[in-house]
């Protein structure tokens, strides 16, 4: 009797576990034909991905920053009409309006504030499988992943900024920013072109420098200290949670 109970218990637990594994993940499309998930595969510098514990397929966020890049996957229901998990399989995500967002493949770049429909279309067809609306919100301020960064000469450290709305709420997306070295140009270098998400700050020689991110109308400064003294692991100040670095260098109101 005890074994029978144990067997039933194990079976129920297994079913529950299986249910969890096959449970609908992401957001169901408006038409109910499939589910949309936020793709964090290349999510470094996207605080929404960090907040979701590095999950590659979290649900769609409430707000996505204008000027940010992000990726969305679509998974159609299985033959039984149930939601499935997994990434896109030959589906493109198309923004309803290029005025709201530009899209290519499953990557989208938000262009202006408003609701935008993301339409899932199977590659090579003109029909729409399903769609979902996302909201783009103007960036009011940005917070660096860490206000101070330590890096060894000859090595590099990842740095990014977290976009926030006018209420100070963190928003999803890898924000597109132009980075520059405003002091200590001989100490560090940064990529010159606009970058979405994290960048690598390269330490060149001992000293201190200030790196500035300009993201639309807002800016954020990061103080970088370069030291040639090996500490075994290199600087790690920039690898912390993006929300941990609250800085007084938040930018002003965006347009």
């Amino acid at each position, binding site marked *: 009797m005890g074994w029978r109970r144990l067997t039933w218990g194990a079976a129920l637990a297994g079913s529950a576990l299986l249910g969890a594994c096959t449970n609908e993940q992401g957001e169901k499309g408006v038409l109910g034909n499939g589910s949309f998930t936020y793709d964090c595969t290349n999510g470094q510098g996207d605080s929404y991905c960090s907040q979701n514990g590095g999950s590659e397929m979290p649900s769609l966020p409430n707000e996505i920053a204008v000027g940010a890049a992000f990726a969305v996957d679509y998974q159609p229901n299985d033959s039984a009409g149930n939601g499935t998990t997994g990434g896109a399989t030959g589906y493109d995500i198309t923004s309803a309006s290029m005025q*709201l967002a530009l899209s290519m493949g499953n990557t989208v770049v938000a262009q202006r504030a408003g*609701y935008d*429909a993301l339409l899932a*279309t199977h590659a090579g067809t003109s029909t729409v499988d399903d769609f979902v609306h996302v909201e783009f919100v103007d960036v009011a301020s940005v917070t660096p992943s860490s206000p101070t960064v330590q890096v060894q000469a000859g090595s590099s450290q990842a740095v990014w900024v977290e976009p926030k709305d006018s209420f100070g709420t963190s928003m999803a997306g890898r924000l597109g920013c132009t980075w520059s070295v405003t002091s200590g140009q001989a100490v560090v270098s940064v990529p010159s072109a606009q970058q979405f998400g994290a960048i690598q700050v390269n330490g060149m020689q001992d000293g201190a420098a200030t790196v500035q991110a300009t993201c639309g109308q807002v800016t954020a400064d990061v103080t970088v200290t370069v030291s040639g003294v090996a500490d075994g692991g290199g600087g790690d100040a920039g690898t912390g949670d993006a929300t941990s670095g609250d800085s007084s260098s938040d930018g002003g109101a965006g347009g």
Partner: protein
Amino acid sequence: MDKRIVGLIAAILVTSACSGIDHGDIEGTTDVPDNYSSLSSASGQIRTGIAISFTPHVWTRNTCGGTSEQSSNIAVQTSDAQVLHVAQVTGQDNQFVVWAVAPGSAHLIIQYQGDTAMSIPVTVTDPPLK
């Protein structure tokens, strides 16, 4: 004139006068998140970026008696693809999605066997600046 010819002409006249498209409408419009956009059989107002799914219906006149609802051979077009886009839902013969591409005015044209059953005027406007 031969009575048979007269009869045939009369039948053709009656048939052409009593058959054809009676009316069309749409139903099953999906919800929108912006509390502004809407689409009905009479008109539509949609913010740029918003998509709405719907199901069109067309009724044709029977030969001098009643109407019949048609569920296939219905096509939906837009009068201006710079303003409105429309596409069929995968695997659904009679379900469509329309989305607003840019501000302007366009018509959503519903056809049955190539004949226009209805033309819905739609106005597209940009989201308000916050």
